[in-house]
């Protein structure tokens, strides 16, 4: 069985869903169910114990077979992310933490320096750390050395729907990594998710593309199918692209068999 292994956890689905930007918690839950995802991320800032109607975390715990991964979106420094991670573990009981540090709340680009610092500390504290990072191959290796269980490079800017703008860097990260590489952010359509999987990504994380779709649950299902197809293609071995035609009758048969 072709499963995704992250830390000591095993997942059969390679689609991870984000839970922000939906028109209601009800629609979000339907999308999560329809996607068949087993790993879902929720921002700590959207945990609301004081007002159940505003809370995204508790309703998700009612879906069987889901592992929840809190994220630190909103943190702008390593210190804030570390503190948020500790609170999130306390509230959720999940060992996973998606480290997300945006020093600029406008474009939401991850800060590589603060992310590295926070990830190092949290990995030492026993968290299963999944950092959201720029598509930088060296940073990815440094985070692997720091004890992260996965790296999550961006395909393009969060919420931009620009797809795999970082494809060439992602290929290097995938080639060099010994931990799962999960493309996070920027995917707009299922075909882009399939392409990421064909490139050899271990999983993809999608949020906006599902949340703002005309019909989020159906779009979630479409992404699930695309991810599965892309993975299957990758595992089957995709034929090489070539710029020149290969003759079906060999051109060098006159040379005889090589000794």
């Amino acid at each position: 069985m072709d499963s995704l292994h992250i830390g000591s956890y095993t997942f059969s689905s390679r689609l991870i869903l984000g839970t922000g930007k939906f028109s209601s918690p009800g629609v979000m839950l339907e999308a999560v169910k329809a996607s068949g995802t087993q790993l879902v991320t929720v921002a700590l800032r959207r945990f609301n114990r004081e007002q159940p109607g505003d809370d995204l975390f508790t309703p998700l715990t009612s879906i069987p077979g889901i592992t929840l991964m809190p994220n630190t979106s909103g943190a702008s420094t390593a210190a804030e992310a570390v503190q948020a991670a500790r609170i999130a573990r306390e509230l959720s009981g999940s060992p996973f933490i998606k480290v997300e540090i945006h020093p600029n709340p406008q474009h939401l680009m991850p800060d590589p320096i603060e992310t590295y610092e926070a990830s190092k500390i949290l990995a030492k504290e026993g968290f299963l750390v999944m950092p959201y990072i720029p598509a930088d191959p060296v940073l990815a290796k440094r985070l692997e050395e720091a004890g992260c269980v996965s790296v999550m490079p961006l395909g393009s800017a969060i919420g931009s729907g620009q797809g795999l703008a970082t494809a060439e860097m992602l290929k290097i990260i995938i080639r060099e990594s010994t931990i799962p590489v999960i493309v996070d952010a920027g995917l707009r359509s299922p075909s882009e998710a399939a392409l990421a999987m064909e490139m050899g990504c271990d999983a993809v994380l999608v949020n906006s593309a599902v949340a703002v779709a005309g019909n989020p649950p159906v779009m979630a299902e479409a992404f699930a199918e695309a991810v599965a197809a892309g993975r299957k293609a990758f595992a089957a071995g995709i034929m090489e692209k070539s710029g020149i035609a290969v003759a079906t009758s060999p051109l060098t048969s006159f040379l005889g068999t090589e000794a």
Partner: protein
Amino acid sequence: MNPLPEWLSAGHDETRFRAMLSPDSPYTLEQLAGESKAITLRRFGRTMSLYAPLYLSNHCSSGCAYCGFASDRKTPRRRLEQEEIRKELGAMKRLGISDVLLLTGERTKAADFDYLRTSVATAAADMQRVTVEAFPMSVSEYRDLAEAGCTGITIYQETYDPLRYAELHRWGPKKDFRERLETPSRALEGGIKTVGLGVLLGLADPQEDALMLYRHLRYLGKTYWRAGLSVSFPRIRPQTGSYEPPFPVSDHLLARMIFAFRIALPDVELVLSTRESPAFRDGMAGIGVTRMSIASRTTVGGYHDAESSDRGQFDVFDDRTAEAFCSALRKKNIEPVFKNWEHAYNGPSHPEAEK
């Protein structure tokens, strides 16, 4: 001497912004609305983040011609003590609010920096997110405020026209145009994470003011790369002192401005308060505006003791309850978000600002 600094006089890349706002604009309102809606949806999703204002004090040392709390108005003056603030916050929390904007007048002995800092700390203990709309401060005061738990400040230039500014701000510390203009920069240097800018619509030529505001935002974004920016669109409404706006702004022009800012600055938070009508607020939700105040009281206090008959700083037009407003948003397929922040994120924006 040109009273405007270089960065406000120099043109940034603003051709399209000007064209969107120009009276003979090549863009129809409907075209702009469509583009603005698509950007809003992609970047912010189907959500609206909510906050509520809490007026801490209406003491004021300035003579702004248009303001119900100006120092020559006969309005009774008072400030909330810390115990009263806690009661107000308690009442706000019962409405579901976790994101509060604290307001005061210009700096006075009755409501000075120490009072404000203490009040921020009181609010930060109870609320997830605390922002402040008060008086201009120094870099070190902003640093102290950030450490007390303030993550954002709102400071409106009111108008970027120096001559109109001088006429309208008759006395007091707010008379100093440049001092006010440089306030957002000082806040960001001090480690405040977000600054909210705006012009008070009705005071001066709205197209000119919008362009200057746009330049100010571009300047801040480039100079302080960590800065979170937001823009509010306060429009003068009837109030204590009955000031008649010399440049009234129509619904159509206000809508056009909101769309132009959304298109030109796709990631910036756009804010609309309860000064505006229910119909206008509901209409703007999902097509440009991403943050709104709810259930607002514009008197000092007013949440705990809802019977107060004081006049506020301005009259609330959208006086729907939190519940009624949220249900209108949900009908539009938009999720009202009460908590979109975490107390853990309340430190200064950058490590150097912590010292």
